[in-house]
């Protein structure tokens, strides 16, 4: 309180002080956001756009391809996709849209 009082006395203007405080808050928020990239699953997924990944569905079927779009439902658009059942290639597609609710997990290629 003493510090704030002295500060406003120096600036001698309430509006400037308000601006100063608001800017300081925004900058610290920005710095915090830059220092800590989000580890939330959907953010991690979005970072993998345009990379190869493999999507394993609840029914055991696996799709490998390049993810060109994804959304908050985890719907995924794969380009140049191949379908695998028990590691055996069963089909190739130009592009496929996988509805998010069918997904068991998504493996990020190049991570192992």
């Amino acid at each position, binding site marked *: 309180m003493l510090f704030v009082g002295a500060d406003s006395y120096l600036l001698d203007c309430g509006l400037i002080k308000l601006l100063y405080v608001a800017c300081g808050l925004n900058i610290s928020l920005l710095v915090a956001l830059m220092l800590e990239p*989000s*580890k*939330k*699953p*959907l*953010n*991690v*997924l979005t970072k993998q756009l345009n990379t190869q990944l493999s999507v394993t569905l*609840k029914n055991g079927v696996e799709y490998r391809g390049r993810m060109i779009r994804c959304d908050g439902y*985890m719907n995924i658009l794969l380009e140049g996709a191949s379908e695998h059942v028990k590691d055996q290639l069963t089909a190739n597609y130009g592009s496929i849209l996988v509805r*998010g*609710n069918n*997904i*068991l*997990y*998504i*493996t*990020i290629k*190049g*991570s*192992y």
Partner: protein
Amino acid sequence: MSEMTTQILEESLGKTVLVRLRGGKSLRGKLKGFDQHLNLVLEETEDTTNADNVKKLGVIIVRGDNVILISPPPR
């Protein structure tokens, strides 16, 4: 998600957790992130469903609706 759940998962961040999934699959991996749906980001993940044939999966994103249980590391 309840505060209790968030707290337990936050304490497990960066540590190895066991995850049992619907359909009988089991995973072991380092918890890197989670959200309100219990979607998970796991690193250095292994599929431990079959104890004598462990499959390496690397970094994976597990969809939350499959999660039956998450076992945090012992403290």
